[in-house]
């Protein structure tokens, strides 16, 4: 492998016309360096691609493909049904969406460790952190990638419903004028859902180099909070407005009902908390989880 460079360079200096392959020796790099910003972008894009298993073996693509496909199916089915009924049945955004919240949890729990635990598992983290990357910027780049991916996944089924509703209407242009305002709730819903999933999953995944533990703890946390909410309602008779907010999955479902102006019998009897309360709780969860993530990345031994 290591031909003495002195000999090869000598032959180059003498012309080396006979050979076509030259070992030019080591060359310095004095081109541009994007510094910390370039490194942040790299970590973001690499993370974003990892979330969907792009550039990874097919095994890594299984969960993302499954979740994206399966979460779109009910939306497509609803759009087809509404189209077939010639607009007789109204499109139920929240009804369709509530069922998909568990799928999003699956995606988030499976993919967050791919990004955050893997670097610790394979001990790549020391290499990354000795480059133009600080511990905090690593945490934030990964979180941004996680959030962006989750946002697209959470948005896709709603967007299918939204575009579908316009598409199957008798006069799409008229419907579009009516529907203009509905894009707000669609975007807000996807943003809040992505925010809760990505921050909580990233925080838990960063705490362990073992991917299976990370996945289990993410799903576990959401399920435990569901159990706690149920227990508090049955045993401690916590008021519904508060109880509604303890369980993130249920809170996201209820918020969808509120945002899309849909309702159930239960909601009529026990009016849900105002939208601002949901947003406040989600922001607190996200801020707390982000703090944990940054704290953990600043302390992790490499």
């Amino acid at each position, binding site marked *: *492998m*290591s*031909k*003495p*460079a*002195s*000999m090869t*360079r*000598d032959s180059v200096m003498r012309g080396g016309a006979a050979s076509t392959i030259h070992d030019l*020796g*080591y*060359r*310095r*790099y*004095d*081109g*541009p*360096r*994007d*510094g*910390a*910003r*370039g*490194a942040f972008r*790299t*970590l973001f894009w*690499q993370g974003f691609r990892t979330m969907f298993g792009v*550039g*990874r*073996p097919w095994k*890594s693509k299984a969960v993302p493909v499954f979740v994206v496909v399966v979460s779109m199916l009910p939306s497509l089915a609803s759009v087809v049904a509404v189209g077939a009924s010639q607009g007789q049945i109204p499109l139920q955004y929240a009804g369709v969406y509530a069922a998909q919240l568990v799928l999003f949890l699956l995606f988030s729990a499976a993919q967050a460790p791919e990004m955050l635990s*893997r670097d610790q598992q*394979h*001990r*790549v983290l*020391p*290499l*990354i*952190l*000795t*480059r*133009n*990357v*600080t511990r905090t910027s690593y945490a934030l780049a990964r979180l941004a990638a996680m959030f962006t991916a989750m946002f697209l996944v959470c948005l896709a089924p709603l967007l299918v419903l939204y575009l579908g509703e316009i598409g199957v209407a008798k006069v799409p242009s008229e419907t579009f004028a009516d529907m203009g305002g509905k894009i707000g709730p669609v975007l807000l819903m996807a943003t809040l859902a992505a925010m809760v999933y990505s921050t909580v999953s990233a925080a838990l995944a960063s705490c362990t180099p073992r991917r299976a533990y990370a996945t289990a703890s993410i799903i576990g946390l959401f399920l435990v909070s569901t159990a706690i909410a149920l227990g508090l309602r049955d045993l401690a008779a916590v008021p519904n407005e508060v109880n509604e907010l303890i369980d993130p999955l249920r809170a996201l479902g209820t918020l969808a009902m509120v945002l899309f102006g849909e309702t159930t019998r239960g909601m009529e009897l026990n009016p849900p908390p105002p939208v601002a309360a949901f947003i406040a709780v989600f922001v607190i969860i996200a801020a707390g989880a982000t703090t944990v993530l940054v704290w953990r990345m600043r302390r992790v031994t*490499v």
Partner: protein
Amino acid sequence: MVGKPDARRGVGPVPRVTSLRPAFLRPPVPIALPLTPVSLPDRSTLIAAQALTRRYGAVTALDALTVTIAPGITGLVGANGAGKSTFVKILLGIVEPSGGSAEVMGRHVVTEREEIRALVGYMPEHDCLPPDMSATEFVSFMARCSGLPATAARERAAEVLRHVGLFEERYRPMGGYSTGMAQRVKLAQALVHDPRLLILDEPTNGLDPAGRDEMLALISRTGREFGISVLVSSHLLGELERVCDRIVLIEQGRLLREAQVGALTSETGTIVIELDAEAFAVNAFTARLSARGLLVQVERQRVLVEIPDGSNADAVRDVYDAVRDAAHAADVGLLRLERRRGHLADLFAAAAS
């Protein structure tokens, strides 16, 4: 060692007897290469540590280590747990010192950490290669983490991988690599952003003797031809002796000894002679030397001659003359004639005890 034959291995005033070897067996003639000038902020000091201390709970990994390291290839030697890795990690800014201070190329390891990182390449001791990534992907990802733009990162990755001797294999997932290949990828990722200082933590760990030689050759080439300073840690003194200009020995977090390899392995008062002769001729040869009052010892094919006063150049020349005359008289062929050199291990053993 490939590359330039070391001047420090030369044999003082007497030329090495190599004329019996055919020309192609002789070491390559050194060629003065126009080296790229090294632009270090401070050329005289590469690393300076002042009372550097690091404690992990009750364990003191570094105990007021004070050392200054000049550019070139420096070996960091110590037993396992002597504090080598801790020292290296403090220099890299991934471990904070509990006390004292350290500078790399005139930049403080805590306050000017970001600047140091652009100048330093790090090859860790442990495995650090994701098994399902290819070497090309991994090394260019690392280049981009150092802020190189995408195209430049790909080009640099291809270049350094070729450099460390990884060719077609670089497109395969790294999970299937041998230890030797993995070590090369680790070296490549440390070189990819063109650092001014390479920090290599136990780079020959787990390699077979051939792989070890190749890795040492690469390190020596990096240090001497690419103009990159190298700090290489190892618990094996013997292999550092072969590539380093300087050795820093630490023990229990303290500096035990620091010296030039040349000075440490300086010539001893013994001449080693290898002969091409029958046993009776060898006996005649040694008898003639003994008759001159020299202390002679026969060691299998070799004859060792003590020089009475090694520091006196005239006395040394007299001994060489005596050997020449004796060889002529006894009609023996001289295959090798050189001053025996000291071994670092002996010196460090003396320092440690």
